[in-house]
């Protein structure tokens, strides 16, 4: 069958000529988007540049945006995206500078990976044989080391779009892998670093990384777990940690959220600059009659309390 792909081109030696180029080719029922792009490169246009290698979703080379969403094109079939032969739009992955066509500069990606000290740091005497570790702990980590560093999560991360300092889903998932490794001796230092600005608290839980990850690594889930672990380890002095605690406390007490208190608690009660900073928002809310002067209460706070008791009891 015939299929049209609309491919983003960028020539750094002639940036003015950049834009989308359409190619129409014959594809098979079983063709992947990578098959189609390779066919274009080999049959129609040798100037098209892309990264690809294994064709089997293990090398992580070929993440790019397909109709606006990051995908590993070697494991994405043409007919899954365009069941009725619709034109497919291909862009390079996002949140990384474009080098040419579909090729981006992964330097920011690898720099962040390096920032989380991505290697096992055991202390104490090295055993003569292997470290003894439970089968469950290792099996759990296999789910994380499934990550092939393709950058799909980084491409579509909505935080990175506005704050390029964020460590991002891939590096944080990598960090999680070491924090949870029973052989590693630096859990506390690692959590302390991840607790800083650009770390675990900067995720907005938009789920994009979970959605686009081609290997089910669930980066956001790992980030959430890192937050729990950081708080359990005593790192409570962040707005994120205070936000979490105030949120839970308020709901437990009133059955509903006390928004004013949440904002004040999150920033820190004595954090005058931050409080002044958010004053305009409060004033605007007052002017519109939407300022929550009094915390709303649930009609059945006892029920909510029972839920908390049940969950906390577990």
């Amino acid at each position, binding site marked *: 069958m015939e299929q049209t792909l609309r491919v983003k081109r960028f*020539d*750094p*030696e002639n940036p003015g000529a950049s834009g989308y180029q359409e190619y129409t080719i014959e594809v098979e029922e*079983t063709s992947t988007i990578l098959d189609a792009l390779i066919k274009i*490169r*080999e*049959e129609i*246009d*040798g*100037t098209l*540049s*892309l*990264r*690809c*290698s*294994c*064709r*089997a*979703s*293990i*090398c*992580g*080379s070929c993440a790019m945006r397909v109709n606006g969403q990051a995908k590993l094109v070697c*494991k994405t079939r043409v007919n899954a995206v365009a069941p009725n032969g619709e034109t497919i739009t291909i862009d390079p992955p996002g949140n990384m500078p474009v*080098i*040419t*066509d579909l*090729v981006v*500069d*992964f330097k920011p990606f*690898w720099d962040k*990976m*390096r920032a989380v000290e*991505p*290697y*096992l740091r*055991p202390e104490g005497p*090295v055993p*003569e*044989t*292997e*470290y*003894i*570790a*439970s*089968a469950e702990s*290792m*099996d759990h*980590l*296999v789910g994380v*080391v*499934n990550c*092939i*560093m393709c950058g799909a999560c980084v491409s579509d991360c909505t935080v990175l779009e506005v704050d390029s300092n964020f460590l991002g889903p891939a590096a944080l998932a990598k960090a999680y892998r070491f924090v949870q*490794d029973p*052989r590693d001796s630096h859990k506390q230092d690692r959590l302390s670093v991840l607790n800083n600005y650009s770390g675990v608290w900067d995720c907005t839980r938009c789920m994009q990384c979970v959605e686009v990850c081609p290997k089910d690594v669930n980066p956001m889930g790992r980030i959430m777990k890192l937050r729990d672990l950081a708080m359990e380890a005593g790192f409570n002095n962040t707005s994120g940690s205070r936000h979490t605690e105030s949120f839970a406390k308020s709901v437990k007490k009133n059955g509903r959220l006390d928004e004013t208190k949440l904002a004040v608690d999150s920033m820190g009660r004595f954090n005058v600059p931050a409080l002044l900073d958010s004053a305009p928002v409060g004033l605007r809310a007052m002017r519109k009659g939407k300022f929550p002067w009094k915390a709303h209460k649930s009609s059945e706070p006892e029920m909510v309390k029972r839920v908390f008791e049940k969950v906390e009891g577990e």
Partner: protein
Amino acid sequence: MHQHDVLIIGAGLAGLRAAVEAARMGVDAAVVTKVHPVRSHSNAAQGGINAPLTDRGDEWEGHALDTIKGSDYLADQDAVELMSREAGAAIIELEHMGVIFSRNEDGQLGTRRFGGQKVARTFFVGAITGSAMLHVLYEQAIKLDVNIYEEWFVSNLIIEDGACRGVVAMNIHSGELHTIKAKAVIMATGGAGRVFEPSTNALICTGEGLGLAYRAGAPLMDMEMIQYHPTTLAGSGILLSEAARGEGAYLLNSEGERFMKTYAPDYLELASRDVVSRAEQTEINEGRGIDGNILLDLRHLGRQFIEERLGYLQEVAVEFLGMDLAEQPVPIRPGMHYIMGGIKTNVDGATEVPGLYAAGETANVSVHGGNRLGANSLLDTVVFGRRAAVAAAEYARTVGLHSSDESMLELEKKRYQDLLDRPADLRSAHVRREMAENMTAGIGVFRDQASIDGAIAKVEELRGVYARVAVENKGKVFNTDLMSAIELEYMLDVAQAVCAGADARKESRGAHFRTDMPERDDENWLKHTLVYKDGDGARVETLDVTITNWQPVERVY
């Protein structure tokens, strides 16, 4: 001009293991790689890594014998012994570095069984063992701050006074050519699967390491030994790991029969790969296949087991075939997978060219001989990658200052420019495909003189038309079109050497099965073939196999 004591070409398992060793030794080492290290093809090794752990009651002799029998007695037994003896320490070291090997109930390393071996001694990470190891070795490279020329493409070696003294490489991002001088160079460029079509190998497996060494005068050894893996997908050639059979999967013909009982009554599906691939091809040729395939059946293992132990296989089946391993048997066939042959080295990675070392799939030590056992390739990379680094570093200490000669850089600039200046004519992709399909047809699971002659004629014809291959992309930045054209030139060298080896070996042994000479001939052919480049052609010599403790006997599985 860049310069180092030791330069490693390639950043797969062999290259990174070598780099880690060199860094530990404190020598000035660097890695140059055409893809980011974690994109290397070592990723694709699924099933595991073999090691006889003596504290578990296993013996190195058992692993050595299985390996030698698997090789059809073509492996050099001193090299195999060394690999088997060093295997245990290599596995433990990888575990200490952070590889998340699967555990048993006591928290110790767990094992699975693999083909051609009497006992379960394959250590694994689900069905992503290679990937898990590669990422950990890259982590170690980060930790040790190894210098990496990432996305640099080596297109020629610098030979001064007969010794290898560096490379000329293109920075793929800028298109600029550079000299990287080195006192010793380690070739760790992996396999050459793209010389065949289809192949399980990645698109980067173009074998220029083999071509570069061949042109520098190093012999390529036993190049006719091409491994066809028993379980690959039709069309794409994508691999389904031997781990499936290791965990108990069946092979079935169109009559629903476990046909391996006829070919290998003891080992059944877990006979060595050459034996299983020939059995499958025989079933297909005799009309008991299904559209040119036979079936791999995992249904009796159960969904939970499949998803826990063989997750990546299930992913491949679902994504590429739209099939569920827990519900349906999947069609598979033998597919080109690995090249046992390679640059001839001694047990320390040294080639016949001073200053040039090799390790991993691109090398031939030889530990795999006529047929590699599953899960021995990863072991080969870490054992001999490490040894090559030690030897190369020691050799580098004996070499004086780098020369300031840049003549090879000028020659390479001219070569690139000539390619770019050629008028539009043939596309490299088309010539490659023609070569690769021809190689699979001529040097397949079964071969004979006529098929070998056909392959030779076609390769020579295509070597002739190479001068017409043109590059459409004239740009400097990330010009993969230009790289493909250069890779093709080296692939044609590899094809020539494979054909020469296949033509020379007048017997059947391991993966080299000639229907016109179906017997193994120990009297005349307990020998390696050595292919030297001779002008534009190939010259074949032979070398006796090293036999130490294990006399060749009939090979029965």
